[in-house]
């Protein structure tokens, strides 16, 4: 299979995409169908304001300015690593030229991308952040307690595409096409893994962030 990445870049990746779509929808529908009760409590503040603040905090303040909240001051490196990792991932996945072309071929439209040197620095930062997060998970007593096999696999399956992508762009160890095949293989594995793991938090993030905003907003306090 590794001799011929055509299979990976072709049917395998396609199957992974379809499993991803089916799996995410399955999970979403299953959660939605558990039922939602109506909130009939008269609010003290605006839910809408709370939700807006909740997202602003979640997207801007939380990952990048750890010292604004006392809670985060104890271990800023880890909060920064988490934020940096996500920033790196999103920037590269959506604004790296080769990745955009994947979306373009699937969706039929493209968008502007970021020059390679910037993407490269981002990738380096992302990989360093991932390693920092792994060390944190290996040493922090709470994380040791809550990490089982699925958590280690989460890390691995996210890290593999990052490291293969990096090796590919830097032409290290293996010929470009081989690593390209490995890269697409690791991405496919990740795509299949996501619906069955906690990496799908990117979908439920919108539930929890909204709920958080509503709960704090309706009480008139800052989320």
């Amino acid at each position, binding site marked *: 299979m590794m001799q011929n990445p055509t299979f990976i870049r072709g049917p395998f*990746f*396609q199957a992974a995409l379809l499993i991803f*779509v089916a799996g995410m929808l*399955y999970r979403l529908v299953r959660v939605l169908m*558990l039922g939602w009760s109506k909130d009939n409590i008269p609010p003290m503040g605006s839910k809408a304001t709370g939700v807006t603040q909740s997202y602003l905090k979640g997207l801007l303040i939380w990952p990048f300015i750890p010292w604004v909240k006392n809670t985060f001051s104890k271990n800023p490196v880890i909060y920064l690593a988490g934020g940096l990792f996500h920033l790196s991932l999103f920037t590269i996945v959506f604004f790296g030229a080769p*990745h955009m*072309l*994947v979306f373009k*071929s699937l969706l039929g439209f493209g968008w502007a991308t970021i020059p*390679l040197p910037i993407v490269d620095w981002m990738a380096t930062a992302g990989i360093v952040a991932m390693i920092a997060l792994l060390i944190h998970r290996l040493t922090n007593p709470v994380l040791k307690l809550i990490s089982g096999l699925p958590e280690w696999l989460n890390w691995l399956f996210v890290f593999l595409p990052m490291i293969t992508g990096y090796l590919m762009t830097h032409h290290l160890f293996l010929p470009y096409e081989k690593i390209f095949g490995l890269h697409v293989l690791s991405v496919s594995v990740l795509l299949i893994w996501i619906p069955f793991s906690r990496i799908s938090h990117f979908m439920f993030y919108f539930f929890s962030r909204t709920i958080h905003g509503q709960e704090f907003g309706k009480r008139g306090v800052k989320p």
Partner: protein
Amino acid sequence: MPEESVYDSLQKEGVSRRDFLKLCGVMAGAMGMTSMPPLEKSGLPSSLDVTEAKSVERIAKAMETQPRLPVIWLEFQDCTGCSESLTRANAPTLGNLVLNTLTIEHHEALSAAAGFQVEEAKQQAMEKYAGQYILVVEGSIPTGEHAAYCTVGGRTAEMILEEAAAGAAAIIAIGNCAAFGGLPKAKPNPTNAASVLDLVKDKAVVNLPGCPPIPEAIVGVITHFALFGVLPELDKLNRPMAFYGKTVHDRCLRRPFYEAGKFALTFDDEGAREGWCLFKLGCKGPTTYNACASIRWDSGLSFPVQSNHPCLGCSEPDFWDGPGFYQGLSAPINRPNATAVGAAAAAGVVAGVAAGAANKAKKKQANEKEE
């Protein structure tokens, strides 16, 4: 009488010593400086063991001493584009060298004779030079029950190749068709086309893929074997490292624009006019190993990217079956169509609803139990 050397025949043609040395210089470049074989392999006197800087001298010495190399050139499922390419080699002398001087004993397209005469001549040459000649194959070979799609003189390409390969010193598969199957092998491969390497397992085979290959590469490899008696250093796909060691992207004159993130997005936008990178128009340069960007075509005049067209990746296996010439090289080869996505989505929703219904029943039961 000792066999005539290449230099001897050139002298007959009136080539001066000065021109001869100049030609040796061109050839040193064409073969690639890095691919000089070790002397013990090439069978040349050890007095010739010179440093790379003196490779011209070494070529001159070889041309003065080595006998002429007979070449048998076969065409199967091809378009003769590779032969055409050879006739347009950089220095006319270089093309002549191969076509005339090195003795092409048999080449259907270039042969004055035709029909049984030509077949006859081929048989004679094969017998005369058995174990010595270079077999050049152009075009892919239909196999199995589809072998009849290509016959010459009532015999299938498969049979002809088998016979010719048996007596060859080495085989050069010219063009993507002979090297990797090329266009005939593209999906759905109606003739069950195969490459030379698919069929010939017991001979040294050099692949010179490309559609067509760069003429300097053809000349370079043939003269290399002619002069040193061994094949140049090859990569994992049996391509000579001298010509296929670097990607088009690595040597591309538009590479700085790639790094800077400046891309042409259509063929007539500002980027295209400014000569920016064609990566987003589907250029396969980063994964294509060939010398187009360095040697270029038509005496170094230009190459596709320079002429504002993305690289198609024609020196790579299965380049017809990629994501598409104008799709990014990273694009998935198979794109799920709307039906497949719809089916997957529907399957996900149905599974979700089924699980949801089961969960609801479970919750209902739990509620009843409580009461």
